[in-house]
């Protein structure tokens, strides 16, 4: 029931935004209301799940433990990004970078994007989830080329083509799983995740392996695993900042969510070793490649995008190692969503002030934008994995799970993380802690641009220091 409310809210929000055209105030009000509804729904879903177990609205939607976690993630970061975008777009309209029609399109597509992501995590059938993920590709394609510059059009085109090919491979993998699962079932029955799991023990192992590889390649493209990541830095850096934070923090995680669903099935069919080796392989590759590139980055938005690839690699590695690593990986996904959003939204403020995404054009942020500067430093400390922030603990657990079984690879990953730290430190020292140039005025754009980030930081710090018991229960349930 509650899921339907969220879905209808978003559909309504998108349609209303489309028809309200030029009236910015109403558009913003719609955004605020729908974000609040989403947050309320997420809270309700979470506590309802703790009390009653799986929430389901047959035959299309159902939320189990894993779904509940991601549902809340989407709601929280979605709300923060929506609130932030109000301020961001106001500031850009003031500067004359965009027109009212563009703002309208932005809000319409934003609601559709959030709708698609909510549908993907609460969908009960793998095909329905696939259609939802394809819908995210379609809705974000125009958001990426929002500024209509040649480089953003090129980034959006690369995004569209690479993701479409990848999603079609994932479609083939999904259909193979359905083919395997429908061997003992009559025609016309709508297969959902549960029935795939129950039939999984009878799957032909080699076909299940091929199907999982296809799913891994396909949804891995969406998630940003190396070597399917080539679209990610371009797309995430050319998109407007609220969209970037949603793409980096949430969409990558949603893609990983779908891979995890299939992982449960293939583990039953072919043993847990197969998927774990795949995860470890892709994970280490992603971490190492992105770490090396971060050192040489000259554009801070691209650097943040590569950092997302790296963190997705760590999450994959966590599931590859298993045990405590899986718990840590899920927690890591949640923390990363929060921390990356903090960084991206602060980067948006920097862009508003300085007008350039190149590192060499930005200096003295701490003096020009005091609040943003502090927030950015906090985000940096968080994302790099320094205590007492949560990511330190999750990375620690992931690697401790791995040191026993795969010491070389774990060591390699740790060294890569040191490179990442160095790269970020270079960024901070050049941009934030340096001296401010004369012509740059002091002061934030408007209150909407920093309050959401502050709230995110507060949530993050609280979650790092006091991990609530309920959250632990849900996560443990999620790791079947």
């Amino acid at each position, binding site marked *: 029931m509650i899921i339907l409310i969220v879905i209808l809210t978003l559909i309504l929000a998108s349609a209303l935004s489309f028809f309200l055209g030029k009236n910015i105030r109403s558009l913003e009000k719609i955004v605020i209301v729908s974000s609040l509804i989403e947050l309320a729904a997420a809270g309700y879903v979470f506590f309802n799940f703790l009390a009653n177990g799986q929430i389901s609205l047959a035959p299309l939607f159902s939320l189990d433990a894993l779904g509940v976690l991601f549902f809340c993630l989407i709601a929280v970061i979605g709300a923060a990004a929506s609130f932030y975008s109000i301020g961001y777009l106001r500031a850009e309209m003031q500067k004359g970078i965009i027109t009212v029609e563009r703002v309208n399109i932005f809000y319409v597509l934003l609601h559709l994007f959030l709708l698609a992501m909510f549908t993907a995590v609460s969908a009960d059938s793998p095909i329905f989830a696939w259609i939802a993920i394809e819908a995210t590709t*379609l809705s974000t394609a125009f958001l990426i*080329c929002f500024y209509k510059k040649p480089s953003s*059009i090129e980034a959006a085109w690369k995004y569209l083509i690479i993701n479409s090919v990848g999603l079609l491979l994932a479609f083939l993998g999904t*259909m193979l799983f359905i083919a395997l699962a*429908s061997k003992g079932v009559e025609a016309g029955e709508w297969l959902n995740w549960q029935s795939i799991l129950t039939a999984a023990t009878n799957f032909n192992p080699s076909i299940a392996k091929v199907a999982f590889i296809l799913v891994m390649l396909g949804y891995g493209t969406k998630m940003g695993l190396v070597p399917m990541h080539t679209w990610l830095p371009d797309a995430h850096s050319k998109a407007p900042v609220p969209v970037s934070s949603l793409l980096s923090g949430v969409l990558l995680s949603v893609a990983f969510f779908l891979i995890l669903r299939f992982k449960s099935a293939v583990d039953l069919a072919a043993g847990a070793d197969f998927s774990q080796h795949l995860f470890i392989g892709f994970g280490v590759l992603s971490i190492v490649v992105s770490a090396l590139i971060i050192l040489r980055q000259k554009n801070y938005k691209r650097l943040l995008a590569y950092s997302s690839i790296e963190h997705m690699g760590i999450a994959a590695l966590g599931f590859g190692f298993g045990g405590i690593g899986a718990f840590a990986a899920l927690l890591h996904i949640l923390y990363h969503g929060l921390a990356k959003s903090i960084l991206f939204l602060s980067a948006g403020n920097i862009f508003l002030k300085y007008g350039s995404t190149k590192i060499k054009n930005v200096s003295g942020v701490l003096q020009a934008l005091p609040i943003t500067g502090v927030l950015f430093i906090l985000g940096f400390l968080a994302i790099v994995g320094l205590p007492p922030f949560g990511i330190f603990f999750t990375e620690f657990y992931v690697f401790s799970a791995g040191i026993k079984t795969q010491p070389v690879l774990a060591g390699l990953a740790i060294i890569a993380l040191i490179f990442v730290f160095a790269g970020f430190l270079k960024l901070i020292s050049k941009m934030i802690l340096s001296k401010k140039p004369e012509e740059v005025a002091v002061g934030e754009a408007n209150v909407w641009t920093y309050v959401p980030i502050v709230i995110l930081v507060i949530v993050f710090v609280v979650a790092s220091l006091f991990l609530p018991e309920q959250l632990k229960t849900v996560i443990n349930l999620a790791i079947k």
Partner: protein
Amino acid sequence: MTPILSQFSYIIAIVVFLSAVGFHLSRKNINLVFLYILQSSAIAVLLFIPAIQEMDFLLLLAAVLTLAIKAVFAPYFFLRLIRRHELTFTSNAYLSLPLTLITLALLAGLAYSHVFKSFVDLSGGNMHAVSLAIAAIFVSIFLSINRRGALSQIIGVLSLENTIVALTLFLGVVDSSGLDIGVSFDIGVWVVIAVLFLSMIYKQFGSLDVSTMKKLKEE
């Protein structure tokens, strides 16, 4: 799977495969669109068979919708785009024609090799059609990779979708109509968005050749 049905499936698989190879050999954009219409019609025929056999209205609706979107709606958009910007000839490929053909032969060999034998076991009576569909999938992916023209890349992705649908039908996956309708709508929206992108690219860069888009190489 009766023998007649498996032979018929094989003939459809031949049409799909030859269209995919034909994409590589065509030098004019209009030929690409016509081959795509041919391929989509073959897939639609495949969807009509179970619909007529079981007299299920929803399946019939799904088949008609697929035919409408893929064989009428999408080509109409493409032809309008071609006529408006006068994009007669496709851009070149990265590999020359002989090398392209050698790669196609190698991909077909890969599809028929023992690597994919397990698929054949899953299929039951349709083994030749399944292997041919796998070969067609590789050829479509190669089309997206090899061609420089943005329209060719789009046709490659659409052809990939066609061949994947063909493969799943040959493997005997039970087809629920809601699934088909959802996927068809999805493809329809995708085509609209892709054509809008093509217009945007042409207006910005002056040609559909992807190698002119070098603005991202500032690293």
